[in-house]
């Protein structure tokens, strides 16, 4: 089968999944439960995506743990996104340097 067909199907499905809820829901939701539910969705989804995946993100548990600790501390302190993200990478890289010397 042509790769172009696969790509078209993938793209079509992915677009519809995003587009339908975004375009169809025009009214403000009144239900207190639904509003609360939608308020918590981003935190729940992002947390579930981060744990435990962050520990496998560098391909090595120890360097990933170093990056995770750095990210947790700096994020908790409220530093900007890019600072937290780059510091996590730097911590993981430094951990790799230390490990390669040991």
């Amino acid at each position, binding site marked *: 089968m042509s*790769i172009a*067909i696969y790509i078209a*199907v*993938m793209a079509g499905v*992915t677009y519809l999944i995003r587009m339908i809820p*975004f375009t169809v829901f025009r009214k403000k*939701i009144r239900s207190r439960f639904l509003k609360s539910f*939608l308020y918590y969705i981003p935190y729940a989804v992002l947390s579930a995506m981060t744990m435990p995946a962050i520990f496998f993100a560098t*391909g090595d548990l120890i360097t990933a743990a170093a990056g995770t600790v750095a990210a947790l501390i700096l*994020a908790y302190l409220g530093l900007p996104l890019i600072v937290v993200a780059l510091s996590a990478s730097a911590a993981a890289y430094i951990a790799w340097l230390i490990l390669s010397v040991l």
Partner: protein
Amino acid sequence: MKGRHFLKGLTHGIPVFLGYLSVSFGFGILAVKSGLTVLEAAAVSLFNLTSAGQAAGVGIIAAGGSITEMVLAQVTINLRYSLMSLSLSQKLDKSFTTPRRLIASYGITDEIFAIASAQPGVVTPWYMYGMILISTVGWVLGTVLGAAAGSILPAEISDSLGIMLYGMFLAIILPPARKEKSVLAAVIIAAAMSCGIYFLLPFISSGFSVIICGIVTAAVCALLFPRDDEEPDGEVQP
């Protein structure tokens, strides 16, 4: 107004651009290994703009899977975007007409959604366009570089960059969790569930796990800590 919002979106998209550049680099390598050309890999990234769905997609292409399998895999892995789109649809400026919604819905990714929903008040079309544009450029550019050059960076550096996006996620969820106990509860419940599924129910795919954890956690928190305030994220003053 449009220009100012567009510029703000571009600026807010810079961390996403950098993160995507490194993540899609890995996707580019994977896609070429799976038998796609550089152009095909770039097309997948341009038309899908999603990491997990694309990785699964090229796996299905490489295995010669059926179209049904492709559709089911994409629906399962990407269903979380429906939740995000629905959540974000509540936060849109009045100027978001149907054609503008059709355009902006293309670019609802985890990271773009996270940053847009963290904005105080409403989000405008041009803010979304700016953020989506710079993020898409990073995503496609990284794919092309990864696919064409194989590996420009030493492995330990590209491995270290792999943690960037997760660091960004933590930077988004932890400051509000520190302020509000209910958000902290959501973060902890979702993380615990996700780890539980990963280690105890490994047959559940990561995309499906995110859907389960997201829905259950948000429902539990909505029941335990319903929100009263009518002001949308009103604590930050302009």
